[in-house]
């Protein structure tokens, strides 16, 4: 399950300047220094305490977060037990500095968060939201298109990972079903 949430675009990032954090992120990696300054002017820096929710599963999502410092837990909740011990909450993955999450909300219309995110330690996040993306597209379409193109690439890769994971799970399910029908 972890690979679904593991950030494949992760880079080593520990409390660096905002420009560095943004330029290291895949979404903004095609932007020049001047173009990055427009994004810097627009993004939001947020501080979270250990144990504080960044967002909760089911809330309307507005955008994504890049971890500038600290780490964040992604957890899932379901009415049915999710793990053999009967717990309805499960830790999906822990994201570190440089990772990002929630990017689907940048393109979804009124979509709700599919998981919760909680600060695993005191952390600083850079928030980039749908209104920010729309403003960039309005003020500088060239910059906006570069970001949207990279965003499409990220979402495409996430989709591919999900499809691969479903294939693996189906195969495992087939094995289990075969075993249970096998008389020996």
């Amino acid at each position: 399950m972890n690979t679904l949430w593991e950030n494949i675009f992760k880079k080593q990032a520990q409390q660096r300047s905002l420009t560095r954090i943004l330029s290291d992120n895949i979404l903004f990696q095609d932007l020049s220094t001047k173009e990055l300054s427009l994004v810097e002017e627009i993004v939001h820096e947020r501080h979270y305490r250990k144990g504080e929710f960044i967002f909760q599963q089911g809330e309307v999502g507005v955008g994504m977060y890049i971890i500038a410092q600290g780490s964040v837990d992604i957890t899932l909740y379901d009415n049915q037990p999710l793990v053999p011990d009967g717990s309805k909450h499960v830790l999906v993955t822990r994201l570190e500095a440089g990772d990002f999450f929630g990017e689907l909300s940048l393109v979804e219309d009124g979509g709700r968060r599919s998981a919760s995110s909680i600060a695993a330690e005191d952390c600083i996040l850079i928030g980039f939201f749908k209104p920010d993306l729309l403003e960039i597209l309005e003020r500088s379409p060239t910059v906006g298109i570069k970001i949207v193109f990279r965003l499409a690439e990220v979402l495409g890769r996430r989709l591919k990972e999900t499809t691969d994971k479903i294939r693996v799970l189906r195969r495992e399910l087939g094995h289990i079903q075969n075993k249970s029908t096998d008389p020996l």
Partner: protein
Amino acid sequence: MMSKNDDKLIKREARVKLLAVTLLLVFALIIILRVENMLVSTLLAIVITYSLKPIVSYLERKGMSRTTSIVIPFIGVGLLLALGSWALSPIISQQLATAKVELPKFIAGFKTLLDRIGYHISYYVGPVMRDSFSEKAANYLQTLLQGSLTDLPTIMGKIFTVSILAPFFAFFLLRDGRTIMKHILRLVPNNLFELFLNLFHQINQQMGGFIRARALEALIVGGVTWLGLSLIGFPYSVFLGVFAGVTNLIPYIGPIIGATPAFVLALVYQDSATTIILMGGVYLAAQLIDMLFIIPLVVAKIVNLHPVTVVVVIIIGSQLLGVLGMIISIPVTSAIKLTVSAVYNHVVGFRV
């Protein structure tokens, strides 16, 4: 896992931040409502900001800096206004001079009109307060007009202050609006941050569309009225056009209020039936253009309020802030509706 102390600290911080942001907004609201000329200046600044924003964004897309992109439309609009005033000043001064000369004649005509109406009433229902009615009404009108003339320096002073303050505020709203908003958002507690951001964005989008559409509507209705009345040679066309444009901002009853002065003038001056029909045709044409083209194309899709709600909020607006309240009641109600629905979705419509 989070300890109880951590949880308490997080909750306390959220409460303090929420209190700070609420106090800040309440303080800003008090200043806007209590300081003289601030409400009108702020509202006008918002209208200027939203009207110029598409031009500013267009110039920015062409590669200009934000400040240059703001300065250019300001200079452009300033020049247009200066040229417009220069071109219209002979007409305005002539119409003002005519009004000054014709004021006693107008009052006398108004009294005659009331006498005639009173005569017709008494014909059917007998002499009920007829003698004193027209006298009283004419006296009231004279006092009112004289009062307006006495208040003219104060009104001119207010107009002067607003015309300086509003563009000044608008310039900084366009240049630093986002930074100001970012500073306010910093005070918003983490658990409400996304809700605030989304809400602000939605209100901003809706207000922008609404204000631009209504400004265009007022401009077109005012322009058509002025042009039509000038063509048929009706007096005071400039003032009647401006009045029709401004009052058109009030839904439903605005167009009626806008056309009333022209009909009163026509009745007082005892204009011919042809003139009255032509003048009515001008107002009708302006309304038809508004109803057939502007409203369906630009206004209707922006705010979705029930007609009963619209009428009720206009009445409330008029009670609270007069004509200004009638004009701003719709956007304010629409913002409140948006806020309530977003908060409801966030708090109640939560689903796992």
